[in-house]
């Protein structure tokens, strides 16, 4: 059995009071609970405050480019589909720079888990608007207030074929750890949107704000109902009423199930080809 200490690398450099500390602790406790150690997980980090976790968390990790953690994770999974693959991203990388990748990862049901740190602002570049910010949010890049309405990550991913969509909150560590664990255990594309405050650059989104605007889904909520799930989240962003829990979950074949090449072995263990001769016959 591993313990959370095993996953610790360098002391995080997040601001005191940043929600990332709690997400970090939740992720570690989920990994420990699943019996993982740092050599049993593939991680890919985007660029942003969230993804600075690459230096704080032990694991086989690829700290890549802004917005590209999803295609990188897909490549890792294709190469070795027996390893769990987790992408750690911010709202800018996932919903802005890498938005196209998100759509296609949903419809491909790639068996990866995407953790999105959603604080409505670009922290690492010191305070420009994020795609999840509320309309009218005044940021360094939108001093007159953002004109666009915020993206709805939950309805977007559910509608595009994601098979596990959850929302957590950095102020609810025990639930968040459970959601992350479920996301990793889920076979298929899982997205966990994690609401978190940015204490330095987004005063509009404090712990108190989220405490007021979030609610736990009732016991009776059926996460297997596609239509209900869409109804539940349809207005949530615009009305600033954020459900917490597993919003939608279903089982579907994952991308690698469709690849007969991977039925017996992972790609990294594939045997070298020995029959070029037979292929050459087709070109005579």
């Amino acid at each position, binding site marked *: 059995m591993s313990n959370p200490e095993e996953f610790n690398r360098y002391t995080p450099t997040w601001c005191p009071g940043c929600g990332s500390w709690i997400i970090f602790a939740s992720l570690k406790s989920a990994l420990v609970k699943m019996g993982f150690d740092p050599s049993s997980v593939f991680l890919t980090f985007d660029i942003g405050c969230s993804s600075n976790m690459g230096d704080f968390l032990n*694991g086989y990790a690829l700290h890549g480019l802004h917005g590209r953690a999803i*295609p*990188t994770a897909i490549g890792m999974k294709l190469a070795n589909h027996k*390893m769990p693959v987790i992408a750690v991203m911010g709202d800018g990388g996932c919903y802005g720079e890498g938005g196209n990748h998100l759509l296609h990862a949903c419809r491909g049901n790639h068996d990866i888990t995407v953790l999105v740190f959603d604080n409505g602002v670009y922290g690492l570049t010191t305070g420009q608007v994020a795609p999840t910010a509320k309309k009218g949010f005044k940021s360094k890049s939108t001093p007159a207030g953002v004109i666009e309405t915020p993206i709805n990550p939950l309805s977007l991913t559910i509608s595009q074929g994601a098979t596990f969509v959850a929302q957590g909150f950095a102020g609810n560590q025990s639930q968040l750890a459970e959601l992350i664990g479920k996301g990793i255990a889920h076979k298929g594309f899982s997205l966990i949107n994690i609401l978190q405050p940015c204490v330095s650059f987004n005063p509009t989104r404090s712990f108190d704000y989220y405490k007021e605007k979030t609610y736990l889904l009732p016991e009776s909520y059926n996460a297997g109902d596609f239509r209900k799930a869409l109804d539940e989240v349809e207005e949530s962003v615009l009305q600033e009423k954020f459900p917490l829990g597993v919003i939608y979950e279903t089982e579907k074949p994952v991308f690698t199930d469709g690849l007969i*090449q991977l039925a017996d072995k992972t790609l990294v263990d594939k045997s070298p080809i*020995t029959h070029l001769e*037979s292929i050459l016959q087709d070109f*005579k």
Partner: protein
Amino acid sequence: MTVGLNFSKIAAHSGYHIFDYTEYPSLIRGGHNTYEVLVSPDIVGASKKTIDLLVCLNKDTFELDKERLARDSMVIYDGDEFAPEGNYQLISLPLRAILKEEEAKEIMLNNIALGASLALMDWDLKYLEEIFIEAFSKKGNDIVEVNKKVARRGFDYIKKNYSELIVKDFPIRQAETKVVLTGNESFSLGSIAADCGLYCAYPMTPASSVQTVLANYAEKTGMVVRHSEDEIAVINTAIGSSWAGVRSAVGTSGGGFALMVEGISLAGMLETPLVIFLSQRPAPATGMPTWTEQGDLLFAVNAGHGDFPKIVLAPGDVQEMFELTVKAFDLADIYQTPVIVLSDKFLSESHQSLDLQKISDFSKNYKPNRGKIVAQVQGQTYQRYQVTDDGISPMLIPGAKGIFYQSNSYEHLENGYTTEAADERIKQADKRNRKLETYLKKDFQKPEIYGDFNKSEIVFISWGSNKGPILEAMKELENASLIHFTHVYPLDQGILIPFFPEGKRYILVENNQTGQFGRLLRGETGIEIKEKLLKYDGRSFWPEEIIKYVKPRRI
């Protein structure tokens, strides 16, 4: 298009070498489409400008191509449609009448003309009939029979009416079994031979057929062939898979390559092996999608922000494409850095005949050289970016138990974690760059000299697919040689200066507007080639153009 390929295959089967070339507009239907095949007893690497036998399925073909006819050229046409004017060997073949009599579809005009062409070459219909059975037996015997029949009609018509025109110079002869491959097919087969595990691409002419060929064979080879949402996903997916230990490649043309550039820099920083197939077409922007140019050389060489090692290879023909593709996968692994294989439409989509056994033997004897990529390491002190004399650090394939590390796009320490320390930055930047020095010492291949350099007055300097047209031109020039570059970047001054002794007429030949290789050579080595023969109209060089340039008065 298949009809031309069938002619090429029959020529190869009859014991001859071929080179073929197609021109077509960027349209799905219509426009002027051509397919030309050069048949030769020797290996041949270009088309020639003079057409010996022109098949006109319509009047436009004659009008558009008559400038390429000589006095004794043969012209097949349908006399019921039009009558060509000019002093040629005219062959009136009742294409549409035969079609009507056989109740065949219009597409079979091709096969009547093919039958007639085979008769004119003094070949037979046997191999063509085998091809029909192979291609159409699934569609039913009727389809096979009608194809055979119309080809026979064209064949017999020549034998009966134009027997005096039958060419006697190409008797069917015994020769080694050949495959007929395009550059793209050669890259595909090279990737398979090199045990590439993932090929990821977004379609873009003229690179697309690599993806379709590899996808067709994916079940047989075990390769995963992925069509991602865009080229940015393409390269990042391949980097993820290569990071996890799988030989991975991507392919595209200039526009898609532009989107991949950030990923190339990432692979350089992560030190993740990656093979990038870049098939050029005339640019900028969308340019001329179905035509050829060598206009992306400097872009490829300079692709990616920052200084990092990169290797660029440019095969000159279909055989070199196979060999250099396999080498590219080895080099990517050995140097843990991006390797670009440069092609262009002319090489990518033209067929050449190759010795089947030679490729097959090569493949049987080949063992991937993965350099310092390992599945296990001893002890717990593994450092992904360990500083070494040759610049190459051992790369542990992720997944080994009891160990872990981060590959990092930020500047990093030897252990992979982020640093901004000045001395650590220098250490890693120098380590990465040393890989180029190691490459130049160990794996750089000097340019190949063709012709008798010492005796020649004229020396062509070129790279990539110009090899074929220049070698064809040299058959008519007794005093010329060629310095042909395939390993185009990096270049080494010390190695290359001896190739350029004084007292010769050096001519840089490039299929682009600004002499990009000349600029690269000058920048990297100080060698300047002043005289340039450049072409950038979307077409490859004709050997005749090169001859005419060198000896304007004789032609």
